[in-house]
């Protein structure tokens, strides 16, 4: 199976012609000002189908967070066009970026409040979301009383509370131990599948450094090159869910991708 086969297949597997793509980037460039302005992202063309789970890999500093920021509308591209179905994408930030004046539950409830969820329901939903990320006991803790991993999980609960059709996650599980991470993989996939079943497809763009995690989760994996960030390659992951991170097939594809990543990085080193 060649790479182009993968691509063909990916397109077929994920694009539902009845729905517009969840995210569409065409010719997106981003250059940060300054004397030594080098383009960070260069001519990115990328589509995320409605309900697709796309993983993005790339070297440190290649522009992954920048890409998500652009999709979320927090920054404007230097050139190119971006459109998001429904106009809004929920973003789980790389630094958990919780509001320090609120408790863990308060952070989640704020997301619900801003969606105009009624008060009683807010409390209930926040409890449920915190329980999903295994933080039942930490609802009333202030941000500074949470460990790094706990903060990330609260941030995930907050992002889920936004209930957007597009969810952008920036290294959401980087601070989690293997086991908790495993649990949350399962929860994320089952949530995603649940949404699909209920006809509210949830498109997820999942940025990670863990190649196996990408293969464990994604329907498609995109590898960004660095300086400038371009789509170097993409793989369609044809393995059936539920997958496990220890699966040989996962490890195999991960090894291939790692090799490619190594080549990408050494090209610039």
């Amino acid at each position, binding site marked *: 199976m060649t790479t182009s086969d993968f691509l063909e297949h990916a397109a077929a597997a994920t694009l539902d012609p009845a729905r517009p793509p969840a995210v569409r980037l065409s010719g997106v460039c981003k250059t940060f000002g300054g004397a030594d302005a080098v383009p960070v992202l260069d001519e990115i063309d990328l589509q995320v189908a409605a309900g697709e789970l796309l993983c993005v890999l790339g070297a440190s500093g290649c522009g992954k967070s920048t890409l998500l*920021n652009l999709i*979320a*509308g*927090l920054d404007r591209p230097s050139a190119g066009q971006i459109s998001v179905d429904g106009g*809004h994408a*929920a*973003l789980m*930030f790389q*630094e958990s*970026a919780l*509001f*320090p*004046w*609120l408790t863990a539950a308060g952070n989640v409830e*704020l*997301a619900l*409040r*801003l*969606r105009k969820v009624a008060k009683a329901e807010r409390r209930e939903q926040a409890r449920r979301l915190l329980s999903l990320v295994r933080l039942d006991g930490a609802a009333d803790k*202030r*941000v*500074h*009383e949470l460990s790094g991993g706990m903060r990330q999980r609260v941030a995930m609960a*907050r992002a889920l509370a*936004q209930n957007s059709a597009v969810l952008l996650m920036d290294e959401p599980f980087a601070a989690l131990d293997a086991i908790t991470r495993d649990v949350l993989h399962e929860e994320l996939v089952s949530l995603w599948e649940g949404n699909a079943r209920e006809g509210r497809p949830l498109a997820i763009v999942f940025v990670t450094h863990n190649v196996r995690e990408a293969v464990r989760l994604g329907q498609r994996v995109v590898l960004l090159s660095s300086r400038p960030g371009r789509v170097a390659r993409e793989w369609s992951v044809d393995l059936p869910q539920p997958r496990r991170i220890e699966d040989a097939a996962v490890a195999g594809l991960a090894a291939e991708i790692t090799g490619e990543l190594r080549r990408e990085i050494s090209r610039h080193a």
Partner: protein
Amino acid sequence: MPDETPRIPAQRDLATLEAGLDALETARSTRAEPLRRLLRILLPPLLAAAALLGLWNLLVLARIKPGWVLPGPGDVYDALVADWTRYGIGDALLGSISRAVIGFGASVLLGTLIGLAAAGSRTLRSAVAPLLSGLQNLPSVAWVPIAIMWFGITPATIYTVMLLGAVPSVVIGLIDGIDQVPPIYRKVGGNLGARGLVLVRRVLLPAALPAYVSGLKQGWAFSWRSLMAAELIAVSPTLGPGIGQTLELARENQDMALAFATVLLILGLGVLVNVLGFAPVERGLRHRRGLERA
């Protein structure tokens, strides 16, 4: 606190008295010990006040100035007791405090509204901020003729002078606070769907709260000082008594003991407002955000 440090040897060389005091203050009182906490809060300023009192007494005892120029603490106390009913100091104090509360309340309200409007737009902010800073420079006496012109000698005059003194300060505190909010919070808020006033109310304001409270403290000082200036303009039954007039009276009478007593009352009031008003709020804010140092 002894139960907190039973088995720790004095391994750090910084185990000075001061570090100990610091630890005393920062150690969490797991079980509420309100008396002890109150003491911990009140003790340092009280000690400082006592030290100043001692210094003052020393200066007086050294007789570097005659008694009518530099009265001693005893003289001042006597003056306070003797003049309390004679000059209606209690009423004057009450009058000033009620004006201060109303004027400051109005300043906070108005200042916050203007500040919030300015917070929403950077253009508005850069247009308004320098003017407000300029306004802050104007002494209250500059406003007195204008206020008299418009309102005559009425409470409105006093409040106008106070507002013109305090509002810029509140607005600037708020603007500065909001300008210093880490942009990530603004981004998160925006992504969560907060826009315009909701963003301000749910994200920017809470994020800027510590700086805002700082601004309010300065605003309070400005309004109190403007009030004193305004109280000197006129005596009128419609205005009622004020401590600013008492101060002026002491000056007119060349009554240094009364002047010192009045100054100490104003000072004490300021300290009280700070210790019982702003300080707990600030401490609470810092505590809840984990800004207290360990």
